[in-house]
């Protein structure tokens, strides 16, 4: 009975699969609960957290009038856009290079790319602060941007490269055999094929940059308070639900971006777990 799904092998299959479904449901509630709570409370009329006092958009209104918050959001956006562009281009180039058969220092380059991902953020933050101090590079949005590029480049390289697993080189070779220059081959054959991966990587870098707190807290200077820094300081003073409102907006934005990226990154047949 080959059509039998494995479920029939499990003891009282319906019960155990129901239990698994229940457990998973609870886990999803656990995962999304705090987020939904945040969203719900951002509409709560009462400034004290949990007791519901009526629906209001006041906090969002207050948010739009808060010039410091808007300035912080602006800064985060500017940095994120710049970082995304640079990291995506360089990271994709690295991924393309590593997909080739002949790569100088392949093992070392691989190791180099993994380091920013595995080394704890706080270590990277301290190292960068030390670097900027020694080089007398004044802390500003530029140092924040440089720091972000430093850690996000690896993510692009790895995501694009994973997407390229199973990439068919013969297409490129065919194009070149037909007389296309390497540049034309890249633009008209390679890039369109890896495009979903590149876009997904770009979206992920964007969210990483916009959400970064630890490293940014070490390398931000005057007039470079980004949105996460502003949110963190508001959370610690625990003042108004304005924090909930801005958090809701930021979460919403990144969730949408990640969802799009995830759709684009739907794994090809030879899936390895993509999860750095």
């Amino acid at each position, binding site marked *: 009975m080959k059509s039998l799904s494995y479920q029939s092998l499990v003891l009282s299959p319906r019960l155990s699969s129901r239990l698994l479904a229940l457990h998973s449901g609870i886990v999803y509630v656990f995962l999304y609960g705090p987020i939904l709570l945040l969203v719900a409370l951002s509409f709560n009329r009462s400034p004290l957290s949990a007791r519901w006092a009526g629906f209001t958009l006041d906090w969002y209104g207050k948010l739009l009038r808060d010039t410091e918050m*808007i300035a912080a959001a602006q800064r985060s*956006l500017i940095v994120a856009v710049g970082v995304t562009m640079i990291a995506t281009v360089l990271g994709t180039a690295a991924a393309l290079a590593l997909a080739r058969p002949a790569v100088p220092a392949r093992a070392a380059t691989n190791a180099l790319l993994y380091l920013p991902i595995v080394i704890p953020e706080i270590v990277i933050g301290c190292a960068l*602060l030390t670097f900027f*101090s020694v080089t007398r590079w004044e802390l500003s949005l530029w140092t924040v941007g440089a720091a972000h590029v430093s850690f996000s480049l690896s993510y692009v390289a790895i995501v694009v490269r994973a997407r390229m697993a199973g990439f068919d080189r013969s297409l490129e070779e065919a194009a070149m055999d037909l007389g296309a220059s390497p540049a034309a081959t890249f633009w008209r054959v390679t890039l369109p094929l890896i495009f979903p991966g590149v876009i997904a990587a770009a979206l992920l870098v964007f969210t990483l940059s916009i959400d970064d707190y630890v490293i940014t807290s070490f390398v931000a200077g*005057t*007039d470079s308070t980004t949105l996460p820094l502003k949110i963190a300081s508001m959370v610690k*003073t625990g003042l108004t639900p304005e924090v909930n409102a801005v958090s809701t*907006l930021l979460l919403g934005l990144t969730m949408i971006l990640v969802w799009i990226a995830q759709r684009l990154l739907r794994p090809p047949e030879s899936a390895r777990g993509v999860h750095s």
Partner: protein
Amino acid sequence: MKYWLVLLTAIFTAGCTKAPSTAAAPKQLNIYIWSEYLPQQVLDQFTQRTGIAVTVDTYDSNETLMAKLASGVAGYDLVVPSDYIIQPLIRQNLIAPLDKSRLTNFGNLDPAFLNQHFDPNNQYSMPYLWGTTGLAYNKKIINTPVDSWDILFDPKYSGRILMLDDMRECFVVALKRMGKSVNETDPAILNQAADMLKKQHALVRAYDSENYDRTLESGDVVVAQGWNGQMAKVVSDRPDEFAYVLPREGGTIWMDNVCIPTGAKNPDAAYQFMNFILEPQPAAEIVNGVYYASPNAAARQFIDPKILNDRNIYPTADMLKGWEFLNDIGPTSRLLDQLWTEIKAQ
């Protein structure tokens, strides 16, 4: 997706209408100061009058200020260190001498506050605000009047005690309970004080130098060590419920001062701001906004009488008998740093 595009565009345009960062604005002033120590309206008035855009970043301990300046790349034009850290800052060449000829309103300051031991002739600093470090408690829950630091060590209130996240101030409490000076340098005594604080760690709900007043007010703690200004505000708002106390064992009087960091990029703006806050009305507005006492004699006439008469903010000389200023304790700071880390790591 469209909503986000609209929102993003809105944010961008909203931000662009305000005078943005250094690139566009010709003049800029970057201030690094204690949190809740400078009312926004004073800054706004300054910007209106001079056209200089001001950014403010905050810190909650002198040691953090020093570490930040020490990085050499922080980019601040004005900082507000406390008395005891000024000599170390000078030694490390982190603050610059003041050109007093540029401080035309300097005369507004009460001479009693000038020429202090930590900066003779005010070569590097200008007094800003001064105060005491005491404790405040919830009268409704602690029925008997409190007059000693002991209450912060009372197991009855375990989990409902708050201490400042400040190395020197916490040691002051322990040292005063031992009858010692706040500037004790004997390692044996400091170790004993550290032991006392280590035992206290389990009773403390939080070490916090920014929200100590709100945490007390919300009822999360029933007694909190704190600086007198924020505490005085809570007490004056709800006098039946809270009280601020100068414990009988003694404690810290302190003075915060305005300084210009070495290598500040906008020293002109800094001097303009310093002159501005030396004027009587802005100086008074600062006091009225943050509830701390000012050394500015000319400002007295504009300060809210309720504040002038508040003994928590303007204590009498009598009340301050036995209260000391913190001094720079030199190399012993290293020992304190280590002990403090041990205490926090419990």
